[in-house]
């Protein structure tokens, strides 16, 4: 192999990568929070919600979990405008991430809810809490605490999956690499740099989420 690696172009192009990182972070923060809210709602609807709500939620979860994110993204960005629903690139990417994370986290959170001992519900009722109050205070928090590591992994997976939003021209980290390689013809180096940044982001995000879990659920071990 006689190829000479060259990273000198980074001196010129690092601001593009910085902008890309900021976009990727922005997408996962908004998509992550909204996605987890949607997932919590769907988990509630599937395990404790009204019976009529269950079939549509099951259909949504199964449809999303069994199709590629790329196609979900294309359907939202290219397909929905044909049906009169037009979104910008960033809006479409965010919506796709919310819908995707919503379906996956719904299954994870549901597993946490269903592992709740029946006595917890009865204890909540005996304290004269309404079903919603019981869910909010007695069921959901311990359930989330139980499955928090799995949830954190899923958020990281969605962040890594967001690399494909560059395909609808969202200027994320992958877009930065595409841009740099098209100008410098240093394709391998450009993708190597973005891959390394993704790895760092994944490690940081996971760490941040686990730390956040410790802060949100301070009574570690209290609920099991």
């Amino acid at each position, binding site marked *: 192999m006689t*190829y000479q690696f060259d990273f000198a172009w980074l001196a010129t192009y690092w601001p593009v990568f910085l902008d890309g990182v900021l976009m990727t972070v922005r997408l996962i923060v908004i998509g992550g929070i909204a996605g987890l809210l949607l997932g919590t709602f769907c988990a509630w609807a599937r395990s404790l919600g009204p019976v009529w709500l269950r079939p549509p939620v099951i259909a949504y979860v*199964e449809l999303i*979990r069994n*199709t590629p994110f*790329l196609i*979900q993204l*294309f359907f939202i960005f*290219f397909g929905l405008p044909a049906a009169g629903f037009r979104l910008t690139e960033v809006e479409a990417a965010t919506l796709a991430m919310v819908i995707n994370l919503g379906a996956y986290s719904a299954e994870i959170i549901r597993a946490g809810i269903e592992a709740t001992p029946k006595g917890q519900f009865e204890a909540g009722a005996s304290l004269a809490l309404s079903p919603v109050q019981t869910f909010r205070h007695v069921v959901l928090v311990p359930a989330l605490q139980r499955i928090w590591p799995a949830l954190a992994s899923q958020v990281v997976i969605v962040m890594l999956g967001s690399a494909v939003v560059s395909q609808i021209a969202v200027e994320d980290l*992958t877009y930065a690499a595409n841009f740099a390689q098209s100008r410098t013809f240093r*394709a391998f180096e450009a993708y190597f740099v973005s891959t390394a940044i993704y790895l760092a982001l994944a490690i940081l995000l996971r760490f941040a989420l686990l730390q956040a879990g410790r802060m949100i659920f301070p009574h570690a071990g209290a609920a099991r």
Partner: protein
Amino acid sequence: MTQFTLIDILRNLIFATQWTVILSLVSFAGGGLLGLVLLFMRIGKARLLPPVVKLYVEIFQGTPLLMQLFLAFFGLGLFGIDVPPWLAAAVALILWTAAFLAEIWRGCVEAVAKGQWEASASLGMSYLEQMRHVILPQALKVAIPPTVGFSVQVVKGTALTSIIGFTELSKAGTVLTNATFQPFTVYGLVALIYFALCFPLSQAARHLERKMNAAHRH
């Protein structure tokens, strides 16, 4: 200009689906073999190998599959080979699948009770004999449901190969959209075909898991 009817679109998509299926099978088979090698390196006695495999898994699970595809595509090119998209796609997907399967299977091996190792050691079995007769048969039973479940990720993962120019179902969807200007119909159908491929696999995984849990309870 030729007009595409719904039947034409569907026929073209189904024709392209065969490449999705072939690439999925190649990735899964190749990834399974490499994953097995990684598994043995990971749980073996050699001191140096387990951290190497751990790093390998960490890197492949901690970076986007799309980046791995790009790096395979342009990285193989550095050796002066003209890299066809199918080759880069297969190489990246095999390496990616192997990382995940090795990690899944490691969990399964570790789920085998420690006493089983001790019991088989006390019978004078060598490491390979322990593996062959005691550990792997038990680990295999635990491994089947998550392995089938992961195959869904492999099928979905093949969609990304369209980005480096491999013509499979997703790429056919893009090409047909450009030809027909009917993105809603085309991507809707593409999604339904992926669903038809993946849903039976996820249902099978769920069914196997339930069956195994039932066996455990008795």
